[in-house]
């Protein structure tokens, strides 16, 4: 059984964390002159989130599915839950095909060291929503 009961939960928690991500000063500085638009395609449950870094906006669901992107990141929703808490090693997950990264990868990989503050933001969102069961030890 999945960690999330449906796509709306994914958007409410991970989508909200991404909204914080695009205005995080370190991300803004790193992406302001680029074209990095990441489409996060999740499975079980199926969900799509578009993170437009230069535009500092996040789209969820159907609006995200058809929108153009420069990088596509695929993973299960459970692994997304772990990843955004800093509990999934990105390089190892790629080697084990738990994550698939396609498109222009250099800018996206360059953002990995900046993800630390997002982990805390995501966990706070989960805690505020009373979903401490999703927080990974």
């Amino acid at each position, binding site marked *: 059984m999945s960690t999330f009961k449906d796509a709306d939960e994914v958007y409410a928690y991970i989508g909200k964390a991404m909204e914080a991500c695009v205005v995080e000063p370190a991300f803004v500085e790193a992406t302001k002159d680029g074209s990095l638009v990441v489409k996060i395609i999740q499975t079980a449950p199926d969900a799509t989130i578009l993170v437009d870094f230069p535009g500092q906006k996040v789209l969820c669901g159907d609006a995200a599915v058809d929108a153009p992107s420069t990088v596509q990141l695929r*993973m299960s929703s459970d692994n997304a839950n772990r990843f955004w808490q800093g509990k999934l*090693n990105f390089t190892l997950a790629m*080697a084990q095909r738990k994550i*698939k990264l396609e498109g222009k*990868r250099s800018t996206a990989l360059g953002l990995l060291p900046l993800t630390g503050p997002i982990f805390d933001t995501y966990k706070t969102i989960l805690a505020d929503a009373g979903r401490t069961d999703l927080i990974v030890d």
Partner: protein
Amino acid sequence: MSDKMTEDEFEAAFAAATELSEYFREIGPDCDVKNKFPKQSIAKFKKSGLVALNVPKEYGGLGADILQTSKIISELSRGDSAITLAYNMHFIMVGMCMGLFSEAQNKEWLGRVADGDIVFGPFSEQRAGFSGLADMTAVPQPEGGWRLYGKKVWGTLSEAANIVTTNATITDADGNLPDTFEERVEQESFFVAEFKVDAKGQGDGVRIERTWDALGMHATGTHTIHFEGFYVPEDGFVCSWRGGAFGVLEWASLMFASIYLGMQYRVLEEARAVLSKKTLGATFGAIAAAETKVANVGHIIDGIGDMASRVELSRRVVHRTCQELVDGYDDNWPVELRFPYIGLAKTFTAENVMYMTKRAMSLVGGSSFRRGAIFERLYRDSAASMFQPLNADQSCTYIGEQLLAPEELSD
């Protein structure tokens, strides 16, 4: 001032490399016989200015990019492959570190390199070489920082180095490694620290055991490094090792490729020098003639042409791969295949240099087999190309596995 190395600056650096290469050529045979790293070359290396070759200009270096660095390493290797392979360790680690260090670390450590310090990086351990997760431990200390315990078996350039970079797995306070594979990956870390040993190779918590005894590349002085409570302060932590190294391993792969390209230049040069002049006098064998000049013999002509073609192809493969990285074209490759695709330049030059050293010996004849002949030396040295990661077998496995993997995620 341009932040890149200009053409004029490159020409000056290349001229310095040519001079140093001549020196390496002169001292190389003795180092090979005595199986030792030429410590007398350290001062010359530093004086050449090339120690700061690929350090970015903002930290006081010459600012060479990966293609410019490759060309200079090949020029050095043309003089002596083994001595250059030793100093190659320095260029590799500078290249990798500048992509992984924090700004403060770049200022401190690359600044020191710009002032003449030499870096080495022992990573491989006995069990599984570079692929193996570090069994070497980094035990957290109450006062902060870590103490390293373990052994690295390919400590190239240790006898010249002032700075050590290495990988170790962070343990609990009692020195226990993490229980799970995932945690081990997570805790395997990259460190940088001051490296100081005495003439006997003994330092504070670290020592060099002079174990180097191999078929070729004698002058590299690739010894065993024992870390016996070696202290690394907190600011010596660089990053998670595997995640970090993944993005910068081109500096290892392509610099090794450049070594073997330089060797190919030398094999062709030596073969031409011998075969363009060699005469056999009167022969009555495969050729029956009153006077046989080998430069007129069909298979010798073809052999030189074949070797020259391989040199040119290898040059194009190495330089083009470097240029594609400089231009950012690698962004178009599937991310999983980036490292093995970069590695193709190394496996291609490795295959060619091994083929060429064998072919050159065959063309030159039995004299090439005698100890001390440049050809037997290059033959032995070229065999080292089989081992630096990724080797040809690993590259094909890596690529094939990715291409045959199902589209679905593994979970």
